[in-house]
């Protein structure tokens, strides 16, 4: 036996190496400078961004490597293979005790628990009425951004009479009628026939307005089938630029199969979407507007997850998503509208604040909180799109929330109307109604860059082109270092031709451009679509041959 001992040890070691590597679910705390760059360099499978951390999957080697890079990493579950994880809000002691008996519950950050089971469907295990968000199915790493817009960057808001006309047509009676109709289904809990009937009602409404509208079917969980309702007004200048206004039409309560009226949650949001469709249907817009009623939000944001994944797969250019979820209950008057955003979407909240001040007078409260994930804006955040959640109170104060008592008589229609008008104004501002008497908005703006390098620095010339506008006497070109905000005119005087080159810019910075057309009388059109000239990435892979030691230089030169 003794002569075989080394061989056995060798086999044992080989066996250990041959064992499949377990992949852990980990939490990476924010705060390390350049964190996103480090995660991108490691190609870490990031599944969720939260206010204070990222949740990701990593094997032991990756874990060690991330820690070596100075990241604060903790393991939440050693073996994540085949498991679905669900984020749930902080639970009351009684609920926590009940849920703990169903699976694993772990505190992730101040306001969030993570729930999972060792087998079976964790979603089916969770009692109804608890907000939830399953972690995304694929990595969100490609969509994480490294730079954010500075706080309070000045936005150039141009007051627009057409927007005033549009919101002036909003009818409180219509809002009331839509909510009543949706409530009349008794329940809109996804999986019930009533929910599907409510979806049909919304689709019929869109079609009656003459919009292109259809169902978007999908399945979730253990094969439950349902459908989103999607309608569209196609933009006239750049139809591939899309603004989305959405709300979920399903509802929930303690007895969801039979009685979940969901007047505030979320017939109110759907009613605002339906009324917005009615009011915008008659107006030509620069950009496309999609009106979406999502299903299966209460089950875990499945409708919006399905939609946003497909949108990203189709490389859809979504300017912003205005998600409305509970916008009609006033805890106390005057009530304000909370607009919850993540860092990338902050510009939307700031813009809405300005819009509200200019058009409706409703107070808008901007809340930047990446951990606010229990509504349909969140899957859009996961895919890198700007999105906000408009809600009466980010900390739910409606005592009828997720109860059979959430009925139309508990709503405040004065606040509801103001909130709907504010969101409609924000939507119109992004979609840009065409104004008569003004030059047309330049379409098809595109940017290409030429990069030049010296030994130390790199510059780029950004070449902009757009479609000529027949009634334009010239064009203004605007540039910003940040998307959707802070634009400054680059061309000292209007440019005559439909093209412009912005010279000698720092190649390692990203720049954003819009252009306008100027009439002979000096009237300026709406902004064109925004284009980005991205920052030049480092090209070490290609150039490394020349660097390093004498040996590598020698190899590079003589091989």
């Amino acid at each position, binding site marked *: 036996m003794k002569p075989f001992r080394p061989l056995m040890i060798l086999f044992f070691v080989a066996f250990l190496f041959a064992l499949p590597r377990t992949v852990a679910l980990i939490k990476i705390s924010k705060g390390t400078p350049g964190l996103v760059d480090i995660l991108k360099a490691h190609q870490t499978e990031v599944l969720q961004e939260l206010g204070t951390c990222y949740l990701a999957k990593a094997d032991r080697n990756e874990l060690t490597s991330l820690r070596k890079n100075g990241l604060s990493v903790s393991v939440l579950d050693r073996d994540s293979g085949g498991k679905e994880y669900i984020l749930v809000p902080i639970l009351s002691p009684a609920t926590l005790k009940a849920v703990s008996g169903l699976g694993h519950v772990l505190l992730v950050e101040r306001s969030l628990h993570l729930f999972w089971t060792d087998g079976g469907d964790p979603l089916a295990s969770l009692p109804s009425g608890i907000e939830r968000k399953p972690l995304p199915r694929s990595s969100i790493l490609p969509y994480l951004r490294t730079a954010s817009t500075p706080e309070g960057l000045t936005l150039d808001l141009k007051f627009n009479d057409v927007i005033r006309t549009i919101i002036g047509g909003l009818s409180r009676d219509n809002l009331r009628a839509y909510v009543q109709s949706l409530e009349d289904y008794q329940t809109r809990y996804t999986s019930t026939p009533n929910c599907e009937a409510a979806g049909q009602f919304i689709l019929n409404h869109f079609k009656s307005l003459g919009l292109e509208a259809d169902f978007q079917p999908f399945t979730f969980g253990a094969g439950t089938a349902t459908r989103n309702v999607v309608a569209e007004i196609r933009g006239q200048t750049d139809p591939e630029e899309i603004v989305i206004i959405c709300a979920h039409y399903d509802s929930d309560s303690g007895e969801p199969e039979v009685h979940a009226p969901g007047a505030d949650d979320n017939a109110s949001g759907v009613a605002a979407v339906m009324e917005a469709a009615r009011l915008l249907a008659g107006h030509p817009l620069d950009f496309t507007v999609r009106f979406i009623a999502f299903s299966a939000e209460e089950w875990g944001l499945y409708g919006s997850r399905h939609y946003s994944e497909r949108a990203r797969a189709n490389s859809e250019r979504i300017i912003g998503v205005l998600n409305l979820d509970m916008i009609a209950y006033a805890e106390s008057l005057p009530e304000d509208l909370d607009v919850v955003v993540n860092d990338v979407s902050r510009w939307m909240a700031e813009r809405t604040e300005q819009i509200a001040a200019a058009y409706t007078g409703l107070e808008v409260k901007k809340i930047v909180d990446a951990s606010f994930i229990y509504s349909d804006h969140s899957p859009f955040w996961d895919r890198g799109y700007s999105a906000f959640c408009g809600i009466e109170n980010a900390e739910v104060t409606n005592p009828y929330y997720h109860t059979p008592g959430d009925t139309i008589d508990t709503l405040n229609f004065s606040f509801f109307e103001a909130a709907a008008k504010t969101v409609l104004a924000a939507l119109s501002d992004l979609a840009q109604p065409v104004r008569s008497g003004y030059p047309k908005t330049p379409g098809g703006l595109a940017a290409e860059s030429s990069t030049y*390098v*010296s030994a*130390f*620095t790199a510059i780029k010339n950004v070449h902009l082109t757009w479609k000529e506008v027949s009634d334009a006497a010239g064009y203004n070109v605007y540039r910003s270092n940040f998307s959707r905000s802070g634009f400054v005119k680059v061309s000292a005087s209007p440019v005559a031709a439909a093209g412009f080159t912005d010279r000698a810019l720092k190649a390692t910075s990203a720049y954003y451009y819009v252009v306008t057309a100027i009439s002979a009388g000096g009237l300026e059109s709406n902004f064109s679509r925004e284009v980005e000239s991205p920052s030049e990435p480092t090209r070490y892979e290609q150039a490394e*041959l020349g660097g390093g030691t004498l040996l590598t230089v020698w190899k590079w030169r003589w091989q």
Partner: protein
Amino acid sequence: MRRTALLVAVCFLIGADSLTGMDWGVSAGAGACLLRQQAVQDIYGTGFPVGVQGWTGGKNWRFSVGLEYLSEHGQALSLDGGADEFPLRLKVTSIPIVLYYQAWLKDVFLALGGGASYLWYEERWEDLDIITKGNNWGPVISFLGGYRFSPRWSVFGNVRYEPMPTGKSSLLVPEVKLGGLKLTAGILLSL
């Protein structure tokens, strides 16, 4: 502080005393800088530094301190086929300090040495207001060969690897290195 000053003074006195027994010389030379980092080579081509050195040493060792200067014109590289031209100017001043071990074969000497070089550099985009300046230390490995054709005069050739790291990164490389393999030749005067 006082102790350090005392140490420096003692070293200086010992050094000064030993200097009297050593050979001294000066040299001037010019050459070419090859095998540079790819990006630098593509932008500026082969460099042609000029310099002067002060020499001292005994029979088997040699110590040199130089002052070298390189000034070159180049063109910014286009990474994606852009047709614009941006002229560049690079100036590098360095002080290489090298200690050699040397051997003599009659009037021929061969020496191998190593040391450090301190450099100041400045790159300027001539049509734009973009200037990059800096200074840094870098290593030097040097091979020297020469022929003494009179008691006071020698000619020499020098092959030196001096990478001149700048400590700065660029779009193309993690660290820009302005030097490379330097081949110089010159004349040496023994004092």
